[in-house]
């Protein structure tokens, strides 16, 4: 068995999701390889070279691949795979991978396995369904397994190696029916919700958007991302992209702090893979207490300023 990892990066540095995907690939066999597509890749390739578990890195460096347009990436990957004997193609289950990987599977006429959280053998995987409210054990009967990997479920690989690199030239033309226009990076000093180690979220208990400032001081001290329940988003306290839960973002930080959140099913579904869950709520009957490692029954308006002070 032989696995190809499709590398996620921003042309300058490698995304952490890639290192977790390499670890997942190493669980299939010792034969793990990486393919990186992009433009002006030298720093990114130098960084990737340090990854443990990789036998070799292939790279295609072309101006046309400077933006991750799925159509162009897919064409390159299919061309690359043609004369090789890979049995597995692994891509991180980020928006990059979710956009790209099903195209690869379709071109190969195989059924992709999405968002795996565990590898049982080369054909058998576990993946969450119903937003993690159930875990399916699935077996693929396809000759090539095209898989996306939930990166929070695999430790990133170590970086103390020096892997061989091979430049692949490509004359493929780009797809003319799709063009990149722009990328508007969310300017925040805080980490992204989906990759943050610590998240502090507020719910309807915060009463209004201004009161989210009470969470900011704590988030600053912990280097935490900020989130919200659907109730808080629906009430207009904070923007939609803060929403954590089944229909928002699924998160798995080391520490999740839920403040003034009752713990509706759909919110729990988005946080249950967190290592530690802490809740602060004045209603001791709130369902969130059942899912929390540590719960504090308190009025959040009194508790938060004290907590912020204690974190000095």
């Amino acid at each position: 068995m032989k696995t190809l990892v499709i590398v996620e990066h921003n042309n300058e540095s490698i995304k952490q999701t890639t290192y977790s995907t390499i670890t997942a690939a190493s669980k299939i066999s010792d034969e793990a390889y990486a393919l990186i597509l992009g433009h002006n890749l030298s720093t990114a390739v130098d960084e990737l070279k340090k990854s443990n578990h990789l036998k070799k890195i292939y790279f295609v460096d072309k101006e046309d691949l400077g933006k991750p347009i799925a159509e162009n990436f897919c064409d390159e990957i299919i061309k690359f795979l043609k004369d090789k004997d890979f049995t597995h193609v692994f891509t991180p289950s980020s928006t990059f991978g979710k956009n790209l990987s099903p195209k690869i599977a379709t071109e190969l006429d195989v059924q992709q396995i999405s968002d795996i959280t565990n590898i049982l053998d080369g054909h058998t995987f576990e993946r969450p369904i119903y937003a993690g409210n159930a875990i399916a054990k699935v077996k693929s009967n396809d000759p090539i397994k095209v898989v996306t990997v939930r990166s929070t479920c695999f430790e990133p690989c170590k970086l103390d190696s020096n892997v061989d690199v091979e430049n692949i030239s490509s004359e493929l033309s780009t797809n003319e029916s799709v063009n990149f226009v722009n990328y508007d990076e969310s300017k925040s000093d805080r980490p992204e919700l989906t990759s943050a180690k610590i998240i502090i979220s507020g719910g309807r208990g915060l009463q209004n958007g201004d009161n989210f400032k009470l969470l900011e001081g704590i988030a600053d001290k912990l280097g935490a991302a900020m989130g919200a329940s659907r109730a808080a988003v629906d009430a207009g306290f904070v923007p939609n992209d803060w929403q954590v839960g089944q229909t928002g973002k699924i998160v798995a930080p080391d520490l999740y702090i839920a403040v003034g959140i009752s713990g509706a099913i759909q919110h729990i579904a988005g946080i249950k893979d967190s290592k530690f869950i802490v809740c602060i709520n004045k209603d001791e009957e709130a369902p969130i207490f059942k899912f929390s490692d540590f719960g504090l029954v308190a009025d959040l308006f009194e508790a938060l300023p004290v907590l912020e002070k204690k974190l000095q």
Partner: protein
Amino acid sequence: MKALVCVKRVIDYNVRIRVKTDKSGVEKDNVKMSMNPFDEIAVEEAVRLKEKGIVTEIVILSIGLESSQETIRTGLAMGGDRGILIKSPDEDIDPLNIGKIIKKVCDKENPDLIILGKQAIDDDCNQTGQILATLLKYPQATFASKVEKNTDDTLNVTREVDGGLETIKVKIPCVVTTDLRLNEPRYASLPNIMKAKQKKIDILDINELSLDLKKRVEILEVNDPPERKPGIVVPDIDSLVNKLKNEAKIL
């Protein structure tokens, strides 16, 4: 411009999911079913494009049991013009096969825009739009939070990607998959629900499509997620901070 909206009937997102004791799947008997929320956003977007005069006809497609007709009716009550149901006795069809079925419908209907949810909240695959775009060789714009028609035959689609928003320009015909921020779906009014009952739904049996739809992925078993060990209630902030430092070793 003709729009095809693909909708899936799923367990309502407010229902507590119960795994069957024989581990074969989750309990669906006597459980409230609804349109997949992301597909609802897709219907809404198609209706808004029609209200702007960009889309002229909206066809609502579903694949599944006879009861999926209700889901199509919901779409028709929101503003769809007519429906197509591909009837299948088996609900669990691999996304690749779903893609092949929708392609077959597209070959006949020739829609300019195919719009569907980015994922269904039952199997959480997030694949169908991408598969369909690849099979049709149409450009794809996944995870859309904004769709704008340009004066030529292109759409500008803003996509929700990790770390920000990406805008791409795609040529029509194309496939768009919807994310949460695209719009807020309307509730169908009673008169529109009544009107929807008169709208036409064509029903086709899946076997009439002459496609090879063999299953590629077997579900061996479905389990409950590992339970979290019961937590404790701490008396005050000091003990909370103490627990996080010494037991969780986080702070």
